[in-house]
């Protein structure tokens, strides 16, 4: 009764201060976003409508040609393949990561912390070094092949490095922690009594999983999918090194426009379309997510 209704707070002269402070706290991040996201995006947008001279310099002469080329079947096929690789990577990461995350979340606290540490240990080493380590494992006269040969499992050296399978192995390896950690975050918060309640009401393991565990860990699953799928589409270092650069990914194509083909306007157009696709897909996913979980 004595307490003021909360809305009156914003009308008081003191209300300005928290608002100002909020902006002050946000300022470094906003400055970062403007400088390193908005400004570069704006530059890309301008470039994407430009032409170039014979040295590859951007010439400010308006054209739609770059965007027309984006929708050439060559690039659409590459985009399709990139999405396919990323989707496969995401699927495998989800299948492998979910049980791991669930298992870790169900351990006692000190065990849990150790296991989480193990998940994060790879980040202590440079990503490139880890990729080269995988190449050493997978190469024809490498560790894996040697082990399998001496165990008599395979008759001839393994021909897996520089194949799409090797690229997928590399992608899954690189992104698995990004699937495990958010799912773990959700699973750890899930009250075990809810799972017991589902069993108690007659749900077997499968139905308890699909009806209770999945919906309740969905925020973690969604975050994991996003964190794996989005960077996996644009990734090209792993597919080049482990896949033998035999099939181009959309990341390779964009990268090449800037450093090999000397066609920055086209690279910019590809980048803009690529970013737009993400924004649209993300917005759609968000909207669907909201309507199914009001």
């Amino acid at each position, binding site marked *: 009764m004595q307490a003021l209704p909360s809305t009156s707070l914003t009308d008081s002269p003191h209300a300005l201060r928290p608002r100002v402070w909020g902006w002050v706290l946000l300022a470094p991040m906003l400055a970062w976003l403007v400088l390193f996201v908005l400004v570069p995006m704006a530059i890309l947008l301008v470039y994407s409508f430009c032409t170039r001279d*014979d040295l590859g310099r951007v010439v400010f002469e308006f054209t739609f040609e770059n965007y027309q080329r984006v929708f050439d079947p060559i690039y659409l096929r590459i985009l399709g393949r990139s999405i396919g690789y990323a989707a496969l990577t995401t699927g495998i990461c989800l299948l492998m990561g979910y049980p791991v995350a669930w298992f870790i979340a169900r351990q006692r606290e000190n065990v849990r912390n150790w296991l989480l540490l193990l998940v994060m240990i790879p980040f202590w080493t440079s990503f490139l070094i880890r990729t080269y380590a995988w190449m050493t494992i997978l190469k024809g*006269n490498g560790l894996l092949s040697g082990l399998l040969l001496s165990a008599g499992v395979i008759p001839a050296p393994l021909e897996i*490095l520089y194949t799409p399978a090797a690229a997928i192995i590399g992608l899954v390896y690189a992104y698995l922690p990004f699937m495990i950690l958010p799912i773990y975050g959700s699973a750890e918060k899930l009250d075990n009594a809810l799972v017991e309640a589902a069993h108690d009401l007659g749900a077997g393991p499968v139905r308890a999983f699909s009806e209770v565990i999945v919906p309740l860990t969905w925020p973690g699953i969604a975050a994991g999918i996003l964190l794996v799928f989005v960077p996996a589409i644009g990734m090209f270092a792993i597919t*080049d090194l482990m896949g033998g650069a*035999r099939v181009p990914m959309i990341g390779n194509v964009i990268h*090449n426009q800037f450093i*090999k083909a000397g066609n*920055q306007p086209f690279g910019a157009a590809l980048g803009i379309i690529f970013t737009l696709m993400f924004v649209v897909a993300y917005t759609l996913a968000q909207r669907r997510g909201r309507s199914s979980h009001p």
Partner: protein
Amino acid sequence: MKPIRLLPLLAIAAVFATAARAADKELNLYAWSEYIPQTVLDGFTKETGIKVNYETFSSGEEMLAKLLAGGTRYDLIQPPDYVAEALIKNKLLVPLDYKKLPNFKNLLPEFTKMPHDPAQKFTVPYMAGTVGIVVNTEKIKEPVAGYKDLFSARYKDRIVVLDDGRELVVGAFYTQGIGLNDITPATLEKARPILTAWFKNIKLFDSDSPKTALLNGDVDLGLVWSGEAAILWNENKKFHYVLPSEGVHMFVDVLAIPKGSRNQSAAHAFLDYLLRPDVSALISEEFPYTNPNGEARKLLTPEQLANPASYPKTDRKLDTFRHLGTSGALIDELFTDLKNTK
């Protein structure tokens, strides 16, 4: 009051003076990665007190794009011949002052007045090389003479090639008798079916270190830079280097001073230092490409000179790349498309 007000101004002036002096003692070098030995850079700093800031790129086009973007004021750049040609044509290089390059005379005459710099006004050759075929003769018993042999179907999935569209297109041009700088939509269409067949047999594309897959035994044949082949030969004499019978592309990487260089005297000093026979020989030791420095060659061991990849014995005419202009994008599109349909 006055002296106190002057104080900050003096401080600022002092800072500028220090910065100016520091610029005198620094050289911004933009060069290929894995091409200039650290000992060479350290030696220069030790002798002159000039610090070398070594920034690297991994393709001539990357270098060009970054140079033109104008982020850093480079004092010395290391373009491949055809990029140097484009820079000269667009008046983006500073003429050399030969009075400051007494060691220029050490260069062999055939490496001066080359097509990219016919007046010999702007560039100093650093190293030259060829693109050729490496054969692991332990695994491949049949003779491999040229592109046609290399890309034969019997070697499917045993080949590494440079991840470089232009080199592969040129290989196809050679088999069709097309001039290597004759890049038009029509000639590219002629090369397409040949390359389509070749691509089916390629296991791996790698420009940075094609020797790795050969050393590991993941592939037995390669289309590589001669320097890589020379290192392989040094590792194991089973790796033979072959100049393709259909035609050979020779490249020269040069050094040049771009317009906007702030420390041209340091750039000249470094150029002359690199042209010194002892320094040049040191480079050959680590990166066994073809050394254009006649006096330096005299310091090399007989074994170094006998390396068939570094110093191939041939009297054939070697071709060089010319600047392509925007048709480079045509090659990229073809290359991307070929990989795509592979």
